[in-house]
């Protein structure tokens, strides 16, 4: 076989893989949108569910999704970014760092239902938080922690060593070096990781049902139970309450995640542009 022919075949395969991936994505999103969009109205977005969700809207579940996602990120981001900074900037490779890294990798491989069970036993029952935003947020935080640690570590590792040397040589303490030379450069990567984590948190069902409950009313405090859109979708579909409303909920969930992605990535571009051009 000639090299030109190999080249053509290889290109064809790669092209097909890319197109196929895009097609699957379009199919999934398209199907949900086609089935869901017709039932979406202002009343659906702003109203409360009636008859277990057969009628009415999904406003409390939108609030539940955003609040739960936000609480889990508020807990997981400082922890994860802190751990990543420790691993990359404050230690040399040692038994301890290997243990921490192995631990987080293992955590990433644990099925979400196990996190749900743990959250139920520890936060909900033992710490007596009950089914609540707090218990759900803590559980989801544990679940997305590995994502944030991993992406932050990667982002920090791409910062040129020369930035660190220059910073030290100009009289920076280690902490100043991290905050003024490393973190600003790593920020876009860190934000990407946090968005990934948000996507995982809001699309989770199993762990959430066990820890945040499935309540249909608006939450009043951090100790109120909530239902997220993903859980709502699951219950509507599995219990055969209303497939039509289930798809509509799914469509709103997809659009929400998409919106947050767009907002965050435009934020990143603006950040990067300020660093590079200005």
């Amino acid at each position, binding site marked *: 076989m000639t090299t030109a022919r190999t080249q053509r075949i290889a290109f064809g395969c790669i092209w097909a893989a890319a197109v196929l991936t895009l097609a699957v994505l379009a199919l999934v999103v398209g199907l949900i949108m086609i089935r869901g969009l017709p039932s979406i109205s202002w009343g659906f977005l702003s109203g409360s569910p009636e008859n277990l969700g057969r009628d009415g809207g999904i406003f409390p579940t939108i609030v539940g999704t955003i609040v739960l996602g936000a609480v889990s990120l508020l807990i997981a981001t400082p922890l994860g970014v802190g751990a990543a900074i420790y691993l990359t900037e404050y230690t*040399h490779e040692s038994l301890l760092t290997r243990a921490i890294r192995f631990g987080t990798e293992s955590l990433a491989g644990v099925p979400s239902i196990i996190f749900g069970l743990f959250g139920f036993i520890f936060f909900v029952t033992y710490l007596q938080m009950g089914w609540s935003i707090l218990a759900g947020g803590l559980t989801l935080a544990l679940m997305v922690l590995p994502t944030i640690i991993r992406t932050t570590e990667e982002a920090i590792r791409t910062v*040129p060593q*020369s*930035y660190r*040397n*220059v*910073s*030290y*040589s*100009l*009289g*920076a*303490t280690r902490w*100043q070096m991290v905050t*003024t*030379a490393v973190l*600003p*450069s790593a920020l876009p990567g860190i934000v990407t990781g946090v968005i990934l984590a948000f996507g995982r948190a809001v699309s989770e069902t199993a762990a959430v049902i066990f820890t945040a409950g499935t309540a249909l009313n608006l939450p009043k405090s951090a100790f109120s139970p909530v239902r997220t859109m993903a859980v709502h979708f699951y219950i509507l579909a599995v219990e055969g309450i209303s497939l039509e409303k289930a798809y509509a909920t799914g469509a709103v969930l997809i659009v929400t995640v998409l919106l947050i992605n767009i907002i965050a990535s435009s934020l990143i571009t603006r950040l990067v542009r300020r*660093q*590079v*051009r*200005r």
Partner: protein
Amino acid sequence: MDSKIEFDHYTLAYGRDTVLNDITLSVARNAVLAVFGPAGSGKSGFLRSINRMAELEPNERHSGDIRMDGTSLFVPGVDLPALRRRAAMVFAQPVALPMSIYDNVSYGLRLSGKRERRQLDEAVERSLRAATLWDEVKDRLDSSGLNLSGGQQQRLSIARALALGPEVLLLDAPTAALDPISTGKIEDMLLDLKANYTIVIVPHSIQQAARVADAAAFFLNGSCVEYGPGNQLFVSPRDTRTEQYVTGRFG
């Protein structure tokens, strides 16, 4: 001769690798010392010992002493950031931090807690002028330092070091990545700066060493083979190894 920095039987090792071996040598005040030798001879280690950057290497060990103005760098409780502001360093690769030109130059001052705008403005202009970059960038101090050319970025690095108001400049092959014109600008600048600073430079060529140095030290495998004032090392080296290196027979 009045000396600014004195190495006193100083030995440096990273893990099992000996970087510097029993160095005793002094650097005269307001003069340029060129430290030259083949790759791996310990020149950078020598430079990095003066601002104690060498300690950032894993498993760094040292013995002996280094004194600046008669005081040991290793007395307990030495303020490292303050030491690094006194002995400012410029690296071989030009590095503009991803921030504006103004922020790059004022970076070290801001690290030390100086925030007053007028003070920073003044330091930025003075340093950029001294680094002969002011005329090229004065109208775009707010634009990113990353947009400057390599030669400009290196002069930016020098301005950043000068802004600290240091007493000593440590230049680690500052023209290694530059074209001859930028190199010439930086060499001219060094001769001007000498009036106010003590300069230790790792030159990127022997010709450069001969052009800028008031004294020179030839390093080989971590030892200082020969050390002498003025052009003596280049014109009439005493050690045969120095002679061979200077005349290009090895290295």
